[in-house]
């Protein structure tokens, strides 16, 4: 079938031109940055995602090296940004654990760590 390559090229071009409105929400960047060391303890963790989030099903938790939760209150969501306040952090390593639901109902999750004062 000599037209086979032409057919698949046409279908591929159509899909490349497709303009989807929604996709998975993945972590784009964070403050403090992923894997960073900061001299001064932050008073909040802020995450930026690649898509808008559903506030009711999106959360952040921050734990210290012994596993105790050091974040306080519920995460605040503003479109692609999610923020949670932190208790005063002594020097140490902390893990940020996030779970979100994008507005197209795809669940994603992840975690990373950062250091304070080291």
């Amino acid at each position, binding site marked *: *079938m000599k037209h*086979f*390559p032409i057919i*698949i*090229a046409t*279908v*591929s071009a159509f*899909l*490349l031109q*497709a303009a*989807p409105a*929604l*996709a*998975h*929400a*993945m*972590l*784009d*960047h*964070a403050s403090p*940055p*992923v*894997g*960073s060391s900061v001299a001064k303890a932050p008073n909040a963790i802020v995450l930026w995602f*690649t898509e808008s989030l559903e506030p009711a099903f999106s959360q952040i938790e921050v734990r210290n090296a012994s596993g105790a939760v050091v974040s306080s209150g519920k995460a605040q969501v503003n479109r692609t940004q999610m923020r949670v306040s932190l208790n005063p952090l002594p020097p140490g*390593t902390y893990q940020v654990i996030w779970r979100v*639901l*994008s507005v*197209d*109902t*795809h*669940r*994603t*999750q*992840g*975690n*990373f*760590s950062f250091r304070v004062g080291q």
Partner: protein
Amino acid sequence: MSTRLMCAALCGVAAQLVPLSAARSHEIVGNRFFPATLAIDDPGVNDELALPTVSRFKTGDDPSVLRTDISGEFSKRITEDFAVSFAPTWTRLHPPGGPNMTGANGFQNLESTFKYRLFKNPEHEFVMSVGLNIEWGGSGAQNIGAERFSSYTPTIYFGKGFGDLPTSMNWARPFAITGQVGYAIPGTTSHTVASIDPDSGDQTFDTEFHPRVLVWGGSLQYSMPYLKSAVVDLGLPDFINQLIPIVEASMQTPVSNTLASGTVTTGTINPGVIWVGKYYQVGVEAIIPVNRQSGTGVGAIAQLHFYLDDIFPTTIGKPIFGNGITTGRPAFGN
């Protein structure tokens, strides 16, 4: 009755059972995104379309024949954990390939894969699936080597990310491996073709034996998206943060009914890189045969792969049955 072994026809029988170029699925487990691999299948169960996959390499025949494959694969989830895929492949054999050594082209036998995700552990980035691949005999063109009998390959797939390594080994946490082990069972053990010897005028019978083949392979990959989102954000350009350098190995070992084929393992090692976006990925790999029976020279394979669950999340991109809520991939850009 004289019986001859059709050695020439049997060259590359194992390879015929498992085409070198095939479209594959993708998977995410916890922090880990396993991209769709080009040479082997991964544990992924998803809605996706690989179109096209183009490969060009020299076969292990004697003399070696330059072969171009253009293939596609459409995978559709029936439930969250079960999917069915269909994969046609168009093949061009350049001269001296084909029955008259003048070249040939046509479709390979249609392939279908039924795959079920057995187990998923986000904490340890581990996933395992089982599947059955069927090559539908007689659906392709015989002049490019498509067999008239069907082949059935039950397969186990797995994937493991190393994100659970201690933070003292942060450099290794973006690594992941995937693998597959299958057993290709031809629908018939042999078949005999009657013909007239042009010299003597006697009737002869040519018997072709079809071996059972262990189909195995794996991939080693280093995920730059994982490095950025879960280990350390180095502030690299987005394009770099979307790359997954990868080495794949795709092997076939005849293990029974090997009277004519022998038991030599054939296969290729494929180093390359995959660029991962929100809605599609692009992969390019070299094809390096592991021995003379696997081919000559270095070939190449490239693939454009669409994530239908992202492009059409409310229609063809979700399971037919189930809630359709899926996990995503670490993607940026496009």
